[in-house]
């Protein structure tokens, strides 16, 4: 009998943070222009002591203006998608729930596209519209996925997958009829891609939003453990079920909307990462939420590095990498559940 202690949680998280750091260094190093690790460490050291002006200019351009912002974006998006995936899994009591599989990402993408069509110049409208799209989609899937008033695992997944394919079709329709406008490529919205850099101001807003929304989900971590055993059991064990569900529903929708508005619909991260973390560290949500955030960051940065370097000089969308890894895992989990 080993109940969770704060020390163990801290140990696990620092381990993952070290892995993330290693992955970040790897991602800075690899690319069309390879950079040696020594140079990297030296230049990072120079920036740290405030002497970035001494750096060779091409290093500064590649490392600090091209690769680093993209890595930071990957960390944000990966953490947001994984935490929202873990949240949806508890909310819907379905281990296969994931923002992409359930169509939530497509809903967010549709919201973002609609806002870009309607008024492309209002700065924060796109993420807000993406959040609205995500929230509406998950509500629709929730009600479509019920049978005789009860959430039914199979029906829910079917409802989500059908919703996703319907929304993707609407997105393609919009993109085709409005091809004259600058809306980024179809692949961006349907597959996800980290190549569009984020304005620095927006980056900080997103860091704060990620912290608040993921933190809100984390405050319900102990309740989510019980919610997974069933709503009525959770209620009898002292969980304020409606309040917890509302918090997770809103926060997970915000996280999905935020991620999709800046990177498109990157699939399967929200499914893949929480499952790997459960296998490694157990299914306690007090561990799962922070490890999923770190793990999501690691997976996305790795996947994006692969996408950038696997067939140079072409860059694949990062969503293609995550789907190639994630879809087989989904099938495996589905098969195992049916047995």
């Amino acid at each position, binding site marked *: 009998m080993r109940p969770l202690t704060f020390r163990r949680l801290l140990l696990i998280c620092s381990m993952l943070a070290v892995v993330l750091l290693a992955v970040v260094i790897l991602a800075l190093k690899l690319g069309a222009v390879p950079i040696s690790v020594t140079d990297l460490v030296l230049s990072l050291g120079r920036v740290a002591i405030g002497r970035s002006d001494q750096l060779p200019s091409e290093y500064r351009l590649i490392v600090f203006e091209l690769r680093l912002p993209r890595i930071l974006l990957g960390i944000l998006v990966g953490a947001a998608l994984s935490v929202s995936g873990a949240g949806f899994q508890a909310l819907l009591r379905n281990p296969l729930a994931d923002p992409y599989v359930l169509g939530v990402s497509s809903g967010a993408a549709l919201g973002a596209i609609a806002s870009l069509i309607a008024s492309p110049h209002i700065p924060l409208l796109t993420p807000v519209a993406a959040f609205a799209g995500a929230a509406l989609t998950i509500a629709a899937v929730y009600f479509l996925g019920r049978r005789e008033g009860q959430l039914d695992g199979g029906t829910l997944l079917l409802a989500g997958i059908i919703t996703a394919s319907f929304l993707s079709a609407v997105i393609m329709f919009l993109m085709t009829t409005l091809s004259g406008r600058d809306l980024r490529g179809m692949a961006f919205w349907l597959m996800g891609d980290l190549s569009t850099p984020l304005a620095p101001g927006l980056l900080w807003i997103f860091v704060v939003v990620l912290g608040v929304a993921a933190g809100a989900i984390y405050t319900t971590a102990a309740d989510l453990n019980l919610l997974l055993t069933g709503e009525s059991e959770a209620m009898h064990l*002292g969980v304020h079920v409606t309040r917890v569900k509302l918090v997770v529903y809103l926060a997970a929708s915000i996280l999905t909307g935020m991620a999709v508005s800046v990177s498109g619909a990157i699939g399967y991260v929200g499914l893949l990462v929480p499952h790997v973390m459960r296998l490694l560290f157990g299914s306690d949500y007090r561990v799962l939420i922070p490890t999923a955030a770190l793990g999501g960051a690691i997976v996305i940065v790795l996947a994006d590095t692969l996408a950038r370097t696997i067939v140079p000089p072409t860059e694949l969308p990062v969503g293609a990498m995550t789907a190639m890894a994630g879809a087989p895992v989904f099938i495996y989990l589905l098969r195992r559940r049916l047995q």
Partner: protein
Amino acid sequence: MSSGRTVTALPGALHSEGEGVRRGPGEVRLSVEQASYAYSVGERRAPLFTLEATSFQARQREVVAILGPNASGKSTLLRLISGAIQPLSGRVQLDGFETSQLEPRTRAQRIAVVQQESPLLFPARAWEYVLQGRHPYGRTLRFETPEDVAIVENALAQVGAGELRDRWMDRVSGGEKQRVILARALAQQPLLLLLDEPTLHLDIGAQVELLQRLRRLAEENRYTAIVVTHELNLAAEFADQVVLLHRGKCLRVGPPAAVYSRELLEQVFEAPLEVGTGPAGRPRVNIRGERTETAG
């Protein structure tokens, strides 16, 4: 009040009343007064099922059986008592508090419910499962204290499941699982223990074992236990009071001997029955066979 209640589930720390006093009159703990409920699809539609006004009282250390055939309103009455639903009319009070008005956390510190089992989505060990019973005592994100661990160990020991502690919940037998679920309810250190068909998937040995244990726990820890069942003989053997329900109506409340009459039970259960007396003086129900054997 929590500090005073913390000790009640720990043996040896029981309030020492006279050893000879097996069951004093005790104060009324649960009081159900004319409570009714109706399920319906919409506000203006006729109700699908109605539980008519029901009244009974239960004292501490008492085991009450809610008895009736399927669809008689047993589970509805249990949900009313648990505070999960609010009565349409009448009141359900635990120590003077309306159960449906309590905050979920407060309610979970006073009422523990053992439901028919629900499947686990992710594997859990028995101790993790029992530890869930400490949830109403923790603050947001609190980590379990050594005291919680001691209470969990104790709860497992009280149901005779100490050796199951590190086993996975999906690798134990039905009877073992039922004991772990009961241990989780004990870890809540409740005043009122509600059990919904706890003997449903158990063989006769495990059924008797569970109910004997429940009797003993109610005695030692001063719980009031309410058990929903359709097992006539188990209720007769272990309950102090029986609440007999039939099609949403409470037909009779009282000790088994007063409730069990042949005409009444035959009408409720729609089967030819005969009521005798068991060795302990409690009623015993048998099926009245079509062919009566006369051989000696």
